[in-house]
């Protein structure tokens, strides 16, 4: 059967959680999201008012103002990498909010574009440690989704006191230009607007782009006037050396000159309008975008902040998919995992999520075991489903709340290492776009097996309650003090002094791990792409799904008639 047999999923909030629990959990979560908003605002402010005023005094816009002007009116942008370098200082006491560059998915004339904009309110847009990596990550996203890529260049070059951390390595600044080249080689349109200082790296970045615009304040140089002998006595400025007069007319390194920021942004919008349109409407096949019946805002309140408390994972899916409709595949096997198809913005998407709470143990009828864990059947199921999504070209969304693989003698005897490796092979060789969400806990090999960052999801999102680690703090404390503990992980020693020292030691281990699990740490070091509010998760997923269908012709997208999914339904379907 070629139809996609959806069924309604989920229940109204009142039937899922009583008012008190819901509001308590909601308050607890919203407090964390308040912090998220405050930290975002802090990052968005760059180095602050003084630097914004300095940009404005030059008759220029800030990076974020440029993006605002570039996007479709009323549309929202989806930023990634907001917290790269968050909380770090360089060269003494300097911070680099957002690593000095804004990377965001921006709708322009109805097409999502990847916009990479040097933040001219942070050290004149210079490149910090991890700035190249952040730009390259954005380019990688654009490459994999074939999104038109737009550089808003206003960059005074590397932040030289830290040059050794941003220049020489495999992902050093020069790799940006390799990514420029790869994007070009794969037919991804690139546009560049040059707004100001573009020295050295900043000078190279625009050149590979298909269209390069310069404002009258912009110059691109391998080295600025400061390094040119005799420049001072002859009063030669960088603008004389590499301004539009040179590059538009003499060198040909740029295509067109425009008077100011405003005009340049209008030109860029016009360029995007000239590109072929989006294929999203085509792949919707007559379906339109429709929000879930059960409000996504209720996710805040339904997910307990305490990672040890359970919730109903189907209620999460019901707050993400269009019309809260879902087609679950292989529902009776490996019930600790739920996998199936829904639509996001009218486009087919695959979902894999961990069921929480107790599930039946198929190996021991009558017994129950905790969900949120990878057992043999569940691994086999999601591996099969992942491969089917790849075969059918369905973008795949991994929603992690996983404490890891099952362990113990029986698990090893069953060969979970091999089942897990098969899953890892599947995910590693998939070509369909995969996106990962760290809903809550994502521990150990579970994080790997469910397409965590090392498995190259196109984008990985965290929430304010994500906990990313090899193991939970208490587990590591047990492992560390293993020789001092009994079978039940209780301290063996009766000596009060020794007991106290072990207790303190274990608590210290737990605390340190707890601090490392902070999603801002992951975001700071680019172990995750963005931290989002639960209430905006659906918007992000819808946008990502739309991007996965925007560019036709570069990846397999099968129509539902010829889906492998139907084979799974025929073999494993209920009844």
């Amino acid at each position, binding site marked *: 059967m070629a139809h996609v*047999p*959806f069924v*309604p999923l989920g229940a109204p909030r009142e039937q899922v959680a009583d008012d008190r629990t819901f509001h308590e959990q909601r308050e607890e979560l919203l407090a964390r999201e308040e912090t998220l908003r405050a930290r975002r605002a802090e990052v968005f402010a760059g180095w602050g008012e003084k630097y914004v005023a300095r940009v404005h005094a030059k008759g220029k816009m800030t990076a974020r103002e440029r993006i605002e002007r570039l996007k479709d009116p009323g549309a929202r942008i989806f930023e990634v990498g907001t917290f790269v370098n968050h909380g770090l200082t360089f060269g003494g006491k300097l911070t680099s909010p957002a690593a000095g560059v804004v990377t965001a998915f921006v709708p322009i004339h109805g097409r999502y574009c990847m916009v990479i904009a040097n933040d001219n309110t942070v050290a004149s847009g210079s490149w910090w440690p991890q700035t190249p990596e952040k730009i390259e990550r954005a380019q990688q996203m654009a490459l994999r989704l074939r999104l038109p890529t737009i550089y808003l260049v206003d960059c005074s070059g590397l932040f030289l006191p830290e040059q050794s951390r941003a220049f020489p390595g495999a992902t050093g600044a020069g790799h940006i230009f390799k990514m420029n080249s790869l994007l070009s080689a794969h037919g991804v349109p690139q546009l560049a607007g040059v707004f100001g200082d573009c020295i050295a790296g900043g000078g190279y970045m625009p050149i590979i782009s298909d269209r390069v615009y310069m404002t009258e304040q912009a110059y691109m140089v391998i080295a600025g006037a400061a390094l040119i002998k005799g420049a001072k006595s002859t009063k030669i400025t960088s603008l004389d050396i590499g301004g539009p007069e040179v590059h538009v007319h003499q060198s040909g390194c740029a295509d067109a000159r425009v008077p100011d920021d405003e005009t340049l942004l209008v030109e860029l919008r016009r360029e995007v309008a000239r590109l072929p349109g989006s294929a999203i409407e085509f792949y919707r096949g007559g379906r339109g975008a429709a929000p879930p019946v059960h409000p996504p805002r209720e996710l805040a309140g339904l997910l307990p902040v305490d990672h040890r408390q359970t919730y109903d994972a189907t209620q999460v899916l019901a707050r993400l998919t*269009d019309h809260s409709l879902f087609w679950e595949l292989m529902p009776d096997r490996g019930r600790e995992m739920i996998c199936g198809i829904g639509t996001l913005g009218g486009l087919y998407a695959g979902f894999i999520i961990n069921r929480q709470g107790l599930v039946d143990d198929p190996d021991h009828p009558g017994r129950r075991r905790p969900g949120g864990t990878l057992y043999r059947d569940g691994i086999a199921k999601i591996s099969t489903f992942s491969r089917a999504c790849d075969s059918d070209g369905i973008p795949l969304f991994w929603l992690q709340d996983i404490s890891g693989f099952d362990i113990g003698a029986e698990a090893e005897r069953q060969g979970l290492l091999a089942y897990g490796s098969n899953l890892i092979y599947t995910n590693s060789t998939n070509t369909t776009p995969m996106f990962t969400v760290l809903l809550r806990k994502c521990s150990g090999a579970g994080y790997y097996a469910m397409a965590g960052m090392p498995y190259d999801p196109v984008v990985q999102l965290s929430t304010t309650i994500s906990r990313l680690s090899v193991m939970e703090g208490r587990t590591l404390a047990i492992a560390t003090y293993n020789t001092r503990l009994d079978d039940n992980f209780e301290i063996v020693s009766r000596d009060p002094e020794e007991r106290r020292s072990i207790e303190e030691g274990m608590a210290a281990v737990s605390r340190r791990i707890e601090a490392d699990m902070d999603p801002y740490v992951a975001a700071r070091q680019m172990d995750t792409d963005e931290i989002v509010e639960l209430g905006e998760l659906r918007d992000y997923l819808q946008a990502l799904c739309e991007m996965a269908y925007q560019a036709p012709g570069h990846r397999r997208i099968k129509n539902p008639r010829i889906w492998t999914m139907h084979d799974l339904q025929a073999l494993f379907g209920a009844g």
Partner: protein
Amino acid sequence: MPRPAAAPEARLATAPLFHRVFVANRGEVAARVARTCEALGVTPVLAASVADRDAGYTRGREVCCVGPARAAGSYLHMEALVQAALQTRCTAVHPGWGFLSENPVFAALCESHGLTFIGPPAHVMRMMGKKTSARKAMKAAGLSLIPGSDGVLEDLEEARRIADEVGFPVLLKAESGGGGRGMRVARDAGELADAYNDAQAEARAAFGDDRLYLERLIEGGRHVEIQVLGDRFGHAIHLGERDCTVQRNHQKLIEESPSPALGPEERARTLAAAARAAAAIGYVGAGTMEFLLDHGVLRFMEMNTRLQVEHCVTEARAGVDLVAEQLRVAAGHRLSLRQDDITLVGHAIECRINAEDPSQGFRPAPGRITRWRPPTGEGVRVDTHVEEGYVVPPHYDSLLCKLITHGEDREQARARMLAALDAFVCEGVPTTASLHAAILSSRAFIDGDYDTRTIPGMPVLKGSSGS
């Protein structure tokens, strides 16, 4: 009485349509839809609950029992209805009106199982079902709105600013609201903060969503609505307006067309804008845009993305079978009519006759009909599922029939209705026929001197509707 040249059924007869259509409704609605299906050579299969499966209107028709008398287990049970439609080899589902007819999930569910939902696309239903998205779409399409916020309010400050702009009194409404909950009136600036906070608290408690929007409160006014039809080719037309100002507790009692209160310029302007708006949002099938006639201006309130009870008023004037057009466009055909083909003739009035006891505060009065003689005569149409011996079940609304009269002008239509009401015989259960007769013979009705707060010919009732 003059009619447009060719009966639409004749043109449709040659066009292949669905072989079997599942009617996911009951009573008068099911009977109405089935009648057109049969006229077009399409086999209707009626969904029926245990309470309805032996009712007279199912006789000689295919019926599939879909669940218990309680609507939640039958006429509102999406999955059971889809299953029934598939099992009875239907290829399309007509939702009628009421029940699931405006449920976009049901539409999406039907489509995903290969059943054509006879109505607009699910996402259009969803968009028009939410207040602020519908307002945005209609504003963009050029309709006048009740002045208010463009979307949900950011905070109390924004509420203040907009209230000052549009003028008091204002109404604060919950974005996810319904049934009057999360709604507060502020009569002046002093009341705004309390109204805002109360509405927000109530909305949060009731819907888990405390977003509010604001509109100027329009008291009184007349309820006027416009019938539109669209096809999948971006073509949409209007079929004139209906005036449904005579209401009791938000329930429409009497509908007529044309509206006796609407000026010709505003009528022409809004009718044209409504058709353009329907096309602009990609509307497919039959739909109704509801307006409040406020000092001569039609202000958009909401859109009903379905056929309505009172569609017969429009059918009488336009000579168009709206159900036939619905089937036609659902099957992917073009509308059989262009705007120029529509000639609206004379005046039509509809009375909804319910099994209710006017002496008991209009309490529904289910029971057995012992004698049943519906009226006949020139310009009289009766839509009903009732026959002698029918038992009005207690589980659903208590509509017995709709009487529609058509005349050359309002006075003739009114006289015919009064005659029809007089000739109508129903024994066994009390009906609202006498109420209708009293309204229609009142001076206020004749003069058109009433608004939504008053029932012509009746003393002002407590709890009768505002906007």
